[in-house]
């Protein structure tokens, strides 16, 4: 039988290729899944990964790519910084919703004023909303030792209830003939977040994501705060020895990831979504967890992983139109994380045959 043996140093090779292997394994396993659903696996995989980029309607889908990738990257960057410190914010979806709600509320309070400063104020409000929502698990953890995974996750469901209440009440469009949902922010010049170049999907949120990639690289590689965050995740006691205050790391990383998720929500509600609606939450906050790990918690890796996951979203839409259930695509994304974690094991361990002879062992 097989057994696992710890490597003296993590294998650089496996760290590099495990995301690629995970994508390939997901395609194979996904193929079986689609076959079991009675679809041709090859056509289904092609529909997800190929058609959005190079198929018949590619010109429409390509623009979607950046639109979908922007929020994923922005949220995943924030999460990755916390994950590096061993702080597990699972509730980015809630922070995304609260950011959108706060930012939108600020804008709607000034409707129909025409002023340049409205959008920047809304952006600020979005970041603050997400930050404040993430500070709840941070404060509870620092004061009472609660588990931030559970608290942040539970707060997603609270945020969803607040979202529904706002869409049906406080922020409901007074001219909306009783339908739930707020005024359309994308159609109001002061709050709109349109494509900066028409048809590319490149709105302010995507610009913010690119800036955040550079910013988080500098923070994590070049700045003392990033070093202290890494140190806390690697070895909490060594971090204390180096003078790091754990509570500050908890507050900083949760706050930052909340603020970035809130920003993503604000850019979404003012652009692609257009309004606060009951179903505004789209799962970006959860998918971003996969993006963060698939990108190896590295800013540039997250950029690529965000684009890949955006592709599966768009490909999923294509496949849905062809009759695949939406749940199959979610299962597909989940498989990606599953395979990634499985292959990751091999960067720290090697597989050996338990009863092999000496010469065989040397060959592994």
């Amino acid at each position, binding site marked *: 039988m097989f057994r696992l043996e710890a490597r003296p*140093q993590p294998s650089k090779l496996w760290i590099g290729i495990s995301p690629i292997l995970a994508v390939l394994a997901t395609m194979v396993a996904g193929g079986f899944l689609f076959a079991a659903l009675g679809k041709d696996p090859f056509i289904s995989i092609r529909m997800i990964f190929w058609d959005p980029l190079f198929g018949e309607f590619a010109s429409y889908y390509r623009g979607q790519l950046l639109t979908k990738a922007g929020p994923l990257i922005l949220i995943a960057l924030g999460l990755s910084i916390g994950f590096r410190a061993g702080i597990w914010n699972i509730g980015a979806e809630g922070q995304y919703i609260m950011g959108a709600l706060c930012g939108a509320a600020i804008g709607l309070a000034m409707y129909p004023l025409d002023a340049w400063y409205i959008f920047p104020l809304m952006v600020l409000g979005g970041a603050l909303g997400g930050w404040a929502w993430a500070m709840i698990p941070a404060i509870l953890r620092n004061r009472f030792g609660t588990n931030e995974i559970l608290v942040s996750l539970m707060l997603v469901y609270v945020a969803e209830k607040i979202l529904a209440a706002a869409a049906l009440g406080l922020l409901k469009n007074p001219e909306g003939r009783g339908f739930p949902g707020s005024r359309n922010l994308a159609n109001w010049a002061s709050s709109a977040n349109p494509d900066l170049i028409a048809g590319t999907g490149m709105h302010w949120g995507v610009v913010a994501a690119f800036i955040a990639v550079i910013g988080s690289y500098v923070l994590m590689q070049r700045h*003392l705060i990033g070093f202290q965050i890494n140190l806390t995740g*690697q*070895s909490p006691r*060594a971090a*204390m*020895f*180096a*003078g790091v205050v754990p509570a500050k790391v908890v507050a900083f990383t949760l706050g930052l990831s909340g603020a970035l998720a809130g920003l993503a929500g604000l850019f979404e509600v003012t652009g692609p979504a257009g309004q606060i609606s009951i179903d505004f939450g789209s799962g970006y906050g959860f998918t971003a967890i996969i993006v963060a790990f698939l990108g190896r918690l590295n800013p540039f890796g997250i950029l690529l992983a965000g684009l890949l996951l955006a592709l599966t979203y768009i490909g999923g839409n294509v496949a849905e139109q062809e009759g695949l259930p939406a749940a199959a695509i979610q299962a597909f994304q989940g498989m990606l994380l599953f395979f990634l974690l499985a292959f990751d094991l091999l960067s720290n361990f090697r597989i050996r045959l338990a009863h092999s002879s000496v010469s065989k062992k040397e060959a592994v």
Partner: protein
Amino acid sequence: MSELLKIDGLTKAYPGVVANDDVSFEIAEGEVHALLGENGAGKSTLVKMIYGLVKPDSGQMTLGGAPYHPAEPKAARASGVAMVFQHFSLFDALTVAENITLGMENAPHRRELSERIREVSNAYKLPLDPNRIIGDLSVGERQRVEIIRCLLQNPKLLIMDEPTSVLTPQEVEVLFETLHTLSDEGTAILYISHKLEEIKTLCDHATILRHGQVVGECVPKEQTARKMAEMMVGASLHTPVKKNLHPGEVILNVQGLSLASKNPFGTTLKDINVTVRAGEVLGIGGVAGNGQDELLLALSGETASPRQMVQVNGVDVGDLNPNERRELGLLTAPEERLGHAAAPDMTLTENAMLTGNIRQRLSSNGFLRWNAARGFAKAIIEQFDVRTPSSENTARSLSGGNLQKFVIGREVLQDPTVLVVNQPTWGVDAAAAADIRQALMDLAEGGAAVVIISQDLDELREVSDRLAILNEGQLTKPAETADLSMDDIGLMMGGHMGDGSDNTTQEAAHV
């Protein structure tokens, strides 16, 4: 005496290193056999093979004449081989009897077991109450639990891995009596140690390992300790030289330091008073778990105390954090190398940044100067002879001794005013240990105040000017090391507060 265990040509290779190369020796019934060697000489691998934890690549063993190839420790125990590990596997929250039950196959009923524990502990003069909670026991008592756990199986061969490293001199004597009794009854003992004096008093025969090979055998009583040490190391040893010093101003002043431990099984520090002068080495001895870790944390700044309880050059630092203390020249090196003094998966450059940032100015406005950190790491590697391919290797990839040289070097090169080190040479080979001691003494000679917390009394007698003992969170009054005999130290460790019995409330200013 007839032959009990015969080892013939045992070889075990790991990727990149041959841990045991064609090792052969024999142990007779009732013999106390020493296995001598430096760290990394292959002692652990060898006994793990005998105990069934590691499978040899080649070679034979016979036990009592029959082929002996234990596939797992259970099989070894069934054949009558028992082992007391250096690191105990006991659950703090359970009682002695419960812990022993956990390790047994077919454990008898609780009452019957308690009865047997009492019997065995009385027979071998190892007093132990089966109903006590492990968390309340001293390290010496915990070791008794492990020994009794083995003796309950009536072993033919008892393996002991560095058993005295955690004991007071008096406890060592009790242990040796027990081992003599066992040996008289015909139980063979395989005794692993690098403490030569105790091997001379205890063992009938010694096998010396170096780099995985048997390099010598001897009858310890007929050899000098120095001769055996040189066989172990394979070179002649240099002993750190101590110069006559004239201590200067008081630099570190600890005044009535009392602190409750955060850890439920930790030790509370009680009214610690001590001063250290420039150019002086203060040794703090004592059995592990008597407040050493807590004292280091209180001095490093990882636990804060009321501000006047710790002073450096007359400045109150008790409430300052580690980096603020570093700014004032108070540096520390904790005992646990991996995970406390250094982050295991970070490179040596990153680990140089870990404590060097403040005094070496490795960052400006929060931005890290990685080139400067690399330069600092390289300086440590070069000046302290750290064997590593480069400064970009992880801390985890270094051997214990090399990493310890790096950790000590990192603090020494920052030109500390006060340096406090806990267990500076624990698990470090003899040559590296001598280098580390010399570096610490040189530092003191250069005018720093040095505090060495250690369980190795020989080390403390060698390097310290004054010596105090930490016992249950209390520190004895420091005495001139030269004036203390081993018996005095033993009494201090056993809870007698040094010269005179009434100085639990010592005058703080006494030097």
